[in-house]
């Protein structure tokens, strides 16, 4: 069960592929869902306040705007230092995402960071800089060479 009211769910499902490009987009959405425009706008605002929606805005295709290299840098960080190093790495502006994940058989890296840049060289420089700053040498860079899918999280339609 998702932590959403029926109305919230309906509204998010209706707009997860984007709002219509017209002068009164929310009016159109409201009409389709049998709600008032005010209700639609207020529901979005509430979802933002509750942080159930991170932001309401445009999703940019980074590849198309020249930020074409996406590197996942994975780090082997001593377990007792993960929290501290995770925070430190997150303070780098170039790092967009930073997650701690479990070590698994055949996979010994426990901290994952994403870096988006214009070239591999730039990604490597940043990795080197981070490595020096946090004192971790055990890392690998995994460049993406093909994007098969990128849609963002979707709420199942039911």
């Amino acid at each position, binding site marked *: *069960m*998702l932590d*959403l009211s029926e109305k919230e769910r309906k509204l*998010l499902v209706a707009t997860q*592929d984007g*709002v219509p*490009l017209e*002068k009164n*987009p*929310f009016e159109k959405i409201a009409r389709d869902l049998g709600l008032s*425009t005010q209700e639609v*706008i207020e529901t979005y*605002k509430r*979802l*933002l306040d*509750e*942080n*159930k*929606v*991170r*932001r*309401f*805005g*445009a*999703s*940019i*295709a*980074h590849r*198309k*705007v020249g*930020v074409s290299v996406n590197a996942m840098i994975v780090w082997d960080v001593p377990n007792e230092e993960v*929290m501290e190093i*995770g*925070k430190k*790495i*997150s303070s780098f502006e170039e*790092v*967009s*995402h*930073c*997650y701690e*994940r*479990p070590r*698994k058989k055949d996979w010994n890296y426990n901290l994952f960071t*994403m870096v*988006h840049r214009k070239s591999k060289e730039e990604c490597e420089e940043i990795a080197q800089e981070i490595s020096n700053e946090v004192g971790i040498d055990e890392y690998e860079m*995994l*460049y*993406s*060479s*093909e*994007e*098969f*899918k*990128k849609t*963002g*999280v*979707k*709420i*199942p339609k039911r």
Partner: protein
Amino acid sequence: MDEVDKKILDRIQSDFPLEKKPFESLSEELGVGEEELINRIRELLDEGYIRRIGPIINSRKIGMVGTLVAVKVSEDRVKDVADFVSQYSEVSHNYRREHDYNVWFTISAESRERIDEILDEVSEKSGVEEIIDLPSKRMYKIGVSFSLAEE
């Protein structure tokens, strides 16, 4: 894409006005006519610079569960396996990466059971040699926003 387009992109990626006439207020703010603004945004969408304008859901906060999956696939089967993976609506990102583990994808689903189901189905596909389930334990940073306009 010209400087005006970049200015528009910079403005609307952070927050799109939640008002009755959002394009009107953007148009005043950016000094671009409302019609022109809508047309420019339509073109940016058509050309693929913008994927969509809408809510970016905080999946965890609404009770969805997720994971990152690493798959080692024999090189000649990568495309087939990747296509199979992409057809799940629960898969939000799917990339080929330059590594022994060459297919990486993320799942956001309504339950852990659903994730296990997808993982089972993917492991059955021919060409899949190894599969590692890497659910996040802690999130330190999330979010991307880029400034495009020249200084």
